[in-house]
């Protein structure tokens, strides 16, 4: 079918069929992709893994980000951390639903974005959020970097998890979906471990490092604990732009720079 014919056919399907109609969904699959911010790299700075450690962990990361923005355009998302865990524990114990937990948890990622913003203010890096995301291209053009709170805005519409009430889509998913929606060049998770292990290396000395793995292999292993949010991995399967992510150790100087240069310095998780 020519491009014009397939466009006409898609338009007629859109006007006449249910959006769940298989042929319609398949026709949208063939439409072109226009990446919105293709030269931007998204980094997620961990809450518990980095921000909660304070100056000794955060300042070297800030220095590295400031240096990196001379060569790369950076969109820096923040995680929650120990206060998010505290408020989830309190709210869950009170019997509150996932939507309320999402809301109070997102405030913690917001605090971390604020703090990182004050540390990077002298370098001209703004904190963007909500409606200000519309000015994101300007911030990136002016200062080559912008900070955002990593929690997705699902609020009372956050899907309930299969068990319990902890929001399933948190800051890993939020940062990842920003990278995917904007068609960014890379997604790097900056945490406090060298990458993914067969178990939590903080509690299990037998945990083995996994340098590279596919989403399907990783989900099939059904590991008891994981350094990234499990539901985010499922989202990667259907991604059109960001088909792989890298998890690196932000406590080791130089790794952010090397990962931005495309080096494999942590664990690469890929959809294919």
């Amino acid at each position: 079918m020519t491009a014009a014919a397939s466009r006409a056919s898609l338009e007629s399907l859109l006007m006449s069929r249910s959006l769940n109609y298989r042929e319609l969904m398949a026709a949208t699959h063939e439409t072109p992709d226009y990446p919105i911010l293709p030269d931007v790299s998204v980094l997620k700075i961990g809450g518990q893994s980095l921000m909660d450690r304070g100056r000794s962990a955060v300042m070297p990361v800030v220095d590295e980000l400031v240096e990196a923005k001379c060569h790369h355009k950076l969109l820096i998302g923040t995680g929650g951390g120990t206060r998010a865990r505290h408020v989830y524990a309190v709210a869950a114990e009170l019997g509150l639903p996932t939507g309320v937990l999402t809301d109070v948890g997102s405030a913690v990622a917001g605090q971390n974005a604020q703090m990182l913003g004050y540390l990077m203010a002298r370098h001209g890096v703004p904190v963007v959020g909500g409606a200000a995301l519309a000015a994101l291209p300007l911030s990136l053009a002016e200062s080559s970097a912008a900070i955002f709170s990593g929690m997705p805005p699902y609020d009372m519409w956050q899907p309930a998890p299969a068990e319990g009430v902890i929001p399933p889509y948190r800051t890993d998913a939020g940062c990842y979906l920003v990278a995917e929606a904007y068609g960014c060049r890379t997604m790097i998770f900056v945490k406090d471990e060298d990458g993914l292990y067969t178990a939590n290396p903080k509690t299990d000395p037998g945990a083995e490092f996994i340098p590279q793995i596919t989403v399907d292999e990783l989900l099939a292993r059904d590991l008891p604990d994981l350094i990234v949010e499990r539901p985010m991995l499922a989202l990667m399967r259907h991604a059109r732009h960001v088909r792989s992510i890298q998890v690196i150790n932000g406590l080791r100087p130089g790794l952010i720079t090397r990962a931005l240069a495309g080096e494999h310095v942590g664990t690469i998780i890929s959809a294919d």
Partner: protein
Amino acid sequence: MTEPGISPAAKDVPSALMRQTLMDRELVKPVDRPVIRLLPWLNVVAIGGRSVIDRGRDAVGPVVDELRAALDEHRMLILTGPGIRARHVLGVGLDLGLPTGVLAALAATEAEQNGHLVAALLAADGISYLPHATVAHQLAVHLAASRAVVSNGFPPYEIYEFPPEVGKIPPHRTDAGTFLLADAYGAARTIYVKDVDGVFTGDPAADSRAELIGRVGARDLLARDLDSLPVDPIVLELMSRAKHVTQIQVVNGLVPGNITRALHGEHVGTIIDGP
């Protein structure tokens, strides 16, 4: 593994989830408690965009009259879907190569406009349109001031919408948004107002042998893999994890009295039960 001494430990706030990845299923269990219903008296009524609002006065007038008459008895969160304009903007956006997240935001705008239309018709009864943030945070006070409010059925996912399994159509639309919000508030009833009598064994518009299914389980309905469902199949999947909304009802809003009867708990249309 990070060797000791590489950096001081994080400054923790003591909690049951302290030092957790929140991914370890066993360790997350201790905080699992029964979830309370925030607004146990709430009725959530979703008005279809294409099925009702696009039909204009002939369809919308009687539906609005019925909602108005129900105000004395029921407290309602009325949510609206988009409709044909969303199809148009999806078509333009897809042709431009824009991603699912942008398409979600564009379609949500149309659902919001339909909400403004319905709210305007009910303004004299003290009913206003509330944006997402107000519905999420101040619904209780608004429903203390008024018997009902109108809002956007689409969830506020926008650029955070999930990439769908096939293609680019945003998967979380009015039906999913309605269900998620109703479940979060622990609503008493969740009613989908459409232009068909309920769920049929086939497409009633195309197949004269299609029969109405009065009551069906969500899992059973998903397994039937029907081509033409009046509610988005994603709702049936979401029902399996719902905390409160274990039943939804699909009614024909073009038949006068159906909304009223459904609000009274009568079995009109199709009732879909969760697991």
